[in-house]
């Protein structure tokens, strides 16, 4: 492991750069559609370029957006190195290495079963159980757990100096935080043992008999048997699972882990981001930074700009006439249209920029680091774009 940083005793970081230097795990979270994945990838790319060491960006997004953002495709569960040539295209030579991986939920679940199964027979039975196959493949909420599990595993292997994780788009932004705990609760539930009794002994006591009759009527015997088998088999991995889930929980709360909440200044995402930031603090998890993405340029709130725009809109024909001599060969009617258009357009965007500024002023949860990333006129679709974004993130003074 490259000796990039000293053992964990991180001082409060005053910049994103400081944060990335002092932590081993950065979890990027926040509402959907704000550029969370891109921000995570940009931060990781910058860390690889500027700080050195081995940096991994782990995306757990099933929509496979990181692959897009990096201009690469075909990431699997396996970590892949982003080639230095990709940086060379932007005229950069990274001091460290950038690695990327995407979460394959099914593959990760299978790996987990292989690790925890007490013997080959149990392993094969679980892997073949229809309920298991559905949970691992289709079951939405299992993403949350497996994402955190995979993070734990990669961290435990110790190959990377810094891991930047992009979190799954959850129904509720907090789902993935609670996932390990929920999983532990789930497997330690008394109900679970209760449910699998009939499968084990087929001796149903009188008190619970009506329940099984009803359950049988509703779900059908085969399905009940599948459920029971699944839980009986999982029971054998119970200890391992609980322990693991608790370790994951500890890792998230550890001082080497920091959370970055990404948002835009739009009302709805920002409200969700604030809620998230508060929840992190309540859980005693470290809120390292809030990153505000796609912030409109300041010139849209320039008072002179607004006056000029109003004037253009109001007096377009007269102004066009007056400009005539300086715009030879152009129909003043057309000039007038253009002047009115650009005036109106400025005022339109001004409304949005104004609203954003107000949102920013009202932000209640302010961490050590608050970074605004300017609005990029074009999309970020390659490493060069990521690095451009990254430079915006980097060393930028708090807003």
């Amino acid at each position, binding site marked *: 492991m490259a000796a990039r940083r000293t053992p964990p005793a991180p001082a409060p970081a005053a910049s994103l750069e400081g944060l990335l230097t002092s932590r081993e795990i950065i979890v990027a979270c926040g509402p959907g559609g704000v550029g969370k994945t891109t921000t995570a990838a940009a931060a990781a790319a910058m860390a690889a370029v500027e700080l050195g060491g081995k940096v991994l960006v782990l995306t757990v997004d099933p929509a496979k957006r990181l692959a897009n953002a990096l201009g690469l495709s075909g990431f699997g569960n396996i970590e892949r190195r982003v080639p230095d040539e990709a940086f060379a295209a932007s005229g950069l030579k990274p001091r460290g290495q950038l690695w990327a991986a995407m979460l394959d939920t099914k593959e990760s679940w299978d790996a987990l079963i292989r690790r925890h199964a007490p013997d080959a027979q149990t392993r094969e039975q679980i892997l073949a159980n229809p309920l298991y196959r559905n949970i691992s493949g289709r*079951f939405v909420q299992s993403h949350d757990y497996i994402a955190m599990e995979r993070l734990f595993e990669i961290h435990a292997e110790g190959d990377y100096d810094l891991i930047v994780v992009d979190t799954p788009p959850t129904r509720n932004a907090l789902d993935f935080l609670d996932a390990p705990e929920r999983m532990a609760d789930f497997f330690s*539930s008394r109900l679970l043992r209760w449910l699998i009794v009939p499968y084990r002994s087929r001796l149903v006591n009188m008190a619970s008999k009506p329940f099984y009759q009803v359950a049988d009527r509703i779900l059908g015997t085969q399905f009940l048997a599948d459920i029971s088998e699944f839980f009986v088999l999982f029971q054998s991995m119970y200890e391992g699972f609980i322990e693991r889930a608790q370790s994951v929980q500890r890792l998230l709360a550890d001082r080497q882990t920091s959370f970055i909440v990404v948002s835009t200044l739009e009302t709805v995402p920002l409200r969700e981001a604030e809620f998230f930031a508060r929840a992190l603090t309540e859980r005693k998890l470290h809120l390292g930074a809030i990153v505000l993405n796609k912030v409109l340029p300041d010139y849209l709130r320039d008072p002179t700009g607004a006056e000029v725009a109003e004037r253009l809109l109001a007096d377009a024909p007269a102004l066009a006439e007056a400009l005539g001599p300086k715009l030879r060969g152009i129909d003043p009617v057309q000039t007038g249209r253009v002047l009115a258009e650009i005036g109106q357009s400025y005022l339109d965007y001004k409304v949005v920029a104004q609203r954003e500024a107000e949102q920013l002023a009202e932000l209640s949860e302010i961490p050590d680091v608050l970074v605004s990333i300017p609005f990029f006129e074009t999309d970020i679709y390659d490493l060069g774009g990521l690095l451009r974004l990254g430079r915006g993130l980097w060393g930028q003074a708090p807003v």
Partner: protein
Amino acid sequence: MVGLLERRLVFVTGKGGVGKTTVAAALGYFAAEQGRRTLLCEVDAKGDIAAYLETGPTSFAERQVHPRLWAMSMDTEASLREYLRLHLKIPMVGRIGPLARAFDFVATAAPGVREILTVGKLAYEVRERHYDLVVVDASATGHIVGQLAAPQAINDLVKVGLIRSQTDWMLDILSDPAKTGLVIVTTPEEMPVNETMELAARVREETTVELAAVIVNRVLPELFGRSEEEVFEKLSKPTPRAELRRLVGGDPGPVLDAARLAVTLRRTRAGHLERLREGIDPSVPMLFLPQMFSRVHGLRAVRQVAGHLGEELGF
């Protein structure tokens, strides 16, 4: 293809942040205006529908919020209760503690149970003809396939029993394009467009539900045509710019910069729109909603969007 409002059950999905809930609310509102008895259901109970419609909090029990418009929010536990009461004639589930808890447990563990309780309730409203149209503010793109495929998944898992007979009729409703359709809301930006195309493919392969429309939200206005763009370029040159400054008594820089930003944005987005058109089956209608710059919230915003939606639907 069957028109959007001629269907009975319309799921509205989209990547987070594209305006899915606004569009769902507007669609429901417009349908009601057109005389359809409409139920609007919010699946991820965040209370956004209530905020948009400026009505009190919604719950599992439908409540009329406007003429011909009812609203509810999904609650899988309440759905289970209703299901047991109506279909299995099992009353008082609340009092059979272990059974309720066991179901909660199975619902957490077993694939598709929560999903099917959601889809089941909606399909039930359609089957019973309580409404002309049910509009669902459904899960985001990452989750919608799991939800729509749930009846099939359960059907594969459960071979006999009452649930099996229940999923059969749900599948009939979901698979019938005259009854059910999916709407994907997107914006003309790179990631939402990518996700929309991916989702359209997955819906085709993994579910039996027809993609009824793609609604592109926040389409930017075209600032000017080609010849006007030339005028703009000339206007930006030092001499006319200085003259403009003198005439209006202030620096036109911010306005010119903003115009350039608007033009670039519009152009970038046009590229994504083109990709979207190429990536989506041409038989799927594509509707466009303009970017709203004004400071409008709640019901007024819903009405505005509904107006645009109506025009796009040919009303």
